[in-house]
């Protein structure tokens, strides 16, 4: 059995989970329109496969993962592509991004099942990875990193421990909890596939001790199938124990090296919902087109968990949960600690959307920030063992170098520091500001280095061309001078009389040139060209006359 460890810092928070776990997972109704953003994961935007007006079937791939880090997107239901354009998406910026809008036809007609219809145990790892990749599965714990790439990234047979993350440490969110309670058997089947792909030596499902029903149901599922190579571990409830690195520390006592990956110490983490999606992809041949969303908070009438198609407008989901209470003040996607507030509720649900948290007006009122008194509460609770107040100091004064010296990029933005700050300083926003600013500066620097190179190359090219021209000119001049000297020598020697005649001719020619200057390039012209020139002359004449007249 495992000797549990603990991570430094963190907070014991009020769970508020009961308000959304009283009823079973409800299927959400099919909306008339699904707006599916192409970018729902970390990495590159996938390549669009459909065109405006296309009929699509449920589960049909509408955007294919590109090379590198990317994930495919599928049609959540059958219908017609009614728009491919930029729509507002759920992102802290409130900006628009490319979306495919599908007008659903209500038939929910599935696309053709793929060829592979054999027992997964007979499939090769590569086949399984392809299925996971083609199903567009991403980490559903929040990071939305493409799962197939995560599984592929580690060397074969280097994973000692596969950790299935069912901690769900953020308050209010209960989608993983409900999934474990109701579909423990499917989760276990999904985990077995992951086990096979990774050839993991041991596998554990980790659940916080505030979810006894989920633990029980997982244990029952394991017993029923007589599986003894998967353990369920109960860990104390403490935010942010569900963070990958914190969870690994609690379960194994090992710290993932900074700038490193869990795979470096032989560990891989997957969320329970991700394992469930893997089960759906392999057993049922269904891509990731829906997810469980917790609709909860203090300003919703009937909080519950819903199984929602990706692309469903949030307001329809809210309506299904009984609508807002009168004192609605805000809507957050995700939990209260790490989620971001949404500008409106018409945005589509994405793969990352684990929770819609409604907030009452009193909670959304902003408390003005006071001066930092350096009390150090933030450092006490920081799970990354940083010095939040010094990071704040350097971030707010834009001293980014010093902030990076103090490991700004090891901050996981868990929000503990802001939550305990007696001065109510929005610390996390300062870190996010500093991080994005540093990234932008980095980009800028790369760009300006590139511009400098191109400019220098251009200067060099111009200088080289000029030098070449000068050289050619010099050679020509030399040649001419030589010729002239030779000719002069000959002339002087041969015929002085002829020189006199030629000089006279030249004088006449010069006189002639002065009087009527002829355009160049008019020798050797075809009759047509001469005619055109004549016509042009005529037009010019007319125009001149006209000008004079006006």
């Amino acid at each position: 059995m495992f000797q549990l460890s603990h991570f430094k810092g963190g907070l014991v928070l009020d769970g508020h989970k009961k308000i959304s776990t009283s009823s079973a997972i409800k299927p959400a109704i099919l909306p008339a329109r699904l707006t599916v953003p192409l970018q729902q994961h970390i990495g590159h935007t996938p390549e669009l496969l459909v065109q405006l007006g296309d009929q699509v079937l449920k589960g049909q791939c509408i955007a294919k993962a590109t090379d590198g880090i990317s994930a495919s997107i599928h049609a959540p239901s059958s219908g017609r592509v009614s728009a491919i354009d930029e729509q507002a998406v759920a992102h802290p910026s409130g900006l628009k991004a490319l979306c495919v809008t599908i007008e659903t036809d209500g038939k929910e007609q599935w696309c053709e099942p793929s060829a592979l219809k054999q027992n997964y145990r007979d499939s090769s790892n590569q086949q399984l990875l392809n299925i996971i990749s083609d199903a567009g599965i991403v980490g559903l714990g929040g990071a939305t990193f493409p799962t197939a790439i995560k599984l592929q990234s580690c060397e074969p047979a280097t994973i000692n421990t596969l950790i299935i993350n069912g901690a769900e440490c953020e308050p209010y969110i209960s989608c993983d909890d409900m999934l474990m309670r109701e579909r423990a058997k499917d989760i276990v089947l999904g985990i077995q596939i992951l086990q096979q792909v990774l050839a993991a030596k041991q596998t554990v499902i980790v659940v916080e001790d505030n979810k006894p029903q989920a633990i029980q149901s997982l244990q029952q599922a394991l017993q029923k199938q007589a599986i003894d190579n998967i353990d369920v571990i109960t860990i104390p409830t403490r935010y942010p124990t569900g963070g990958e690195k914190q969870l690994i520390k609690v379960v194994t006592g090992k710290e993932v090296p900074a700038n490193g990956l869990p795979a470096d110490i032989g560990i891989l983490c997957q969320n329970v919902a991700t394992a469930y999606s893997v089960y759906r992809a392999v057993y049922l041949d269904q891509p990731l087109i829906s997810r469980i969303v917790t609709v909860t908070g203090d300003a919703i009438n009937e909080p519950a968990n819903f199984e929602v198609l990706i692309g469903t407008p949030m307001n329809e989901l809210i309506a299904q949960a009984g609508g807002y209470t009168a004192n609605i003040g805000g809507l957050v996607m995700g939990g209260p600690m790490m989620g971001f507030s949404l500008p409106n509720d018409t945005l589509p649900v994405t793969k990352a959307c684990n929770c819609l948290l409604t907030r009452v007006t009193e909670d959304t009122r902003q408390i003005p920030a006071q001066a930092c008194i350096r009390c150090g509460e933030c450092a006490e609770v920081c799970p990354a063992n940083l010095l939040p107040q010094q990071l704040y100091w350097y971030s707010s004064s834009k001293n980014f170098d010093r902030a990076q010296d103090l490991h700004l990029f090891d901050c996981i933005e868990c929000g503990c520091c802001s939550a305990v700050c007696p001065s109510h300083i929005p610390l996390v926003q300062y870190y996010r500001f500093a991080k994005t600013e540093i990234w932008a500066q980095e980009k800028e620097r790369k760009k300006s280095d590139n511009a400098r190179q191109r400019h220098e190359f251009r200067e060099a090219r111009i200088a080289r061309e000029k030098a070449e021209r000068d050289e050619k000119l010099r050679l020509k001049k030399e040649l001419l001078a030589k010729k002239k000297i030779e000719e002069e020598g000959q002339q002087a020697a041969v015929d002085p009389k002829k020189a006199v005649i030629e000089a006279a001719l030249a004088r006449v020619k010069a006189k002639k040139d002065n009087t009527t200057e002829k355009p160049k390039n008019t020798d050797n012209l075809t009759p047509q060209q001469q005619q055109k020139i004549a016509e042009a002359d005529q037009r010019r004449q007319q125009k001149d006359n006209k000008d004079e007249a006006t």
Partner: protein
Amino acid sequence: MQFNSATSSPHMMRDDGISQLMLQLLFALTPGAIAMFYFFGWGVVFNLIVAISTALIAEAAVLRLRQREIKNTLLDLSAVVTACLLALALPPLAPWWLTLVATLFAILLGKHLYGGLGFNPFNPAMVGYVVVMISFPREMTFWLLPSTINPAALGFIDSFNLTFFSQLPAAMSWDSISSATLLDGIKNHLSQGHLLSSIDTNQQLGNLFGKLAGNGWEWINLCYLAGGLWLFKNRIIDWRIPLGLISSLSLLSLLFYLIDSEQYLSPSTHLLSGGIMLAAFFIATDPVSASTTPRGRIIFGAGIGVFIYIIRQWGGYPDGIAFAVLLMNMAAPLIDYYTVPAAFGKRDQS
């Protein structure tokens, strides 16, 4: 439906703020303040009144000049805390203008010259204290015998006249009212070449000694200790600074006491004399001017303890808390620089 989405996560903030912290600090100060009042009379109260009103008026005036928000800043109570700490550190018979000057320097020079709360590198109360300590050394000796052993304890009217009008009660001289503190007396005693064991032969000094340390002082310090422990229990202050201070002071004093108990005072006398507990739990723990890293705070507290011992034992002043705190304030940025904790996952790397 549209929402305001300008804020970043987390969407949970604590309900209380700086004012509540300061209020609890003031609450924790009350046992010590009451003990001070019990042993030293009304002068303590007058000090508090003068200091608090000066601090509030000075802070309001500066905020106005600096075009800052006045009401909320005054309500953060940081100026009141500074004033209280200063008032409790000054001698009870201090004339009103001494308290006023000290408070003005604390608020103006110690705090707002550097940008106000959160930006001051030095403990404001100690800045004010040091200014009057250097400028008015005579007035800074205006201590009196604890009421338990004082045959000439002053009443309200007499104290009032003395504090505000420098009027001595009829038929009394300064010498009959004021008295050296224990630390002062011992310093004199030792400097005259006497041994500690001969203290009992010195009528006045023997009187000053109580059970553990100075008569009266031991109780005052125990009251501050109780207040400090309550603060620690409520997680208002960091335990590292008091621990560092008390342990370094006790270790040093124990060491020298064991070497020569005739020349060096016992640890218990050191710990419960003067303002050690006030300093350990209320003054040195001022987070703004202290070190901020966990390890740095232990070093910071220990450094203060070391300096206090050095100044008491070999320095020119009977007590050196203010200097010790200011010296370590100066060192705090350096301590912070060298005690940055290893970030998560960096422990194994160099």
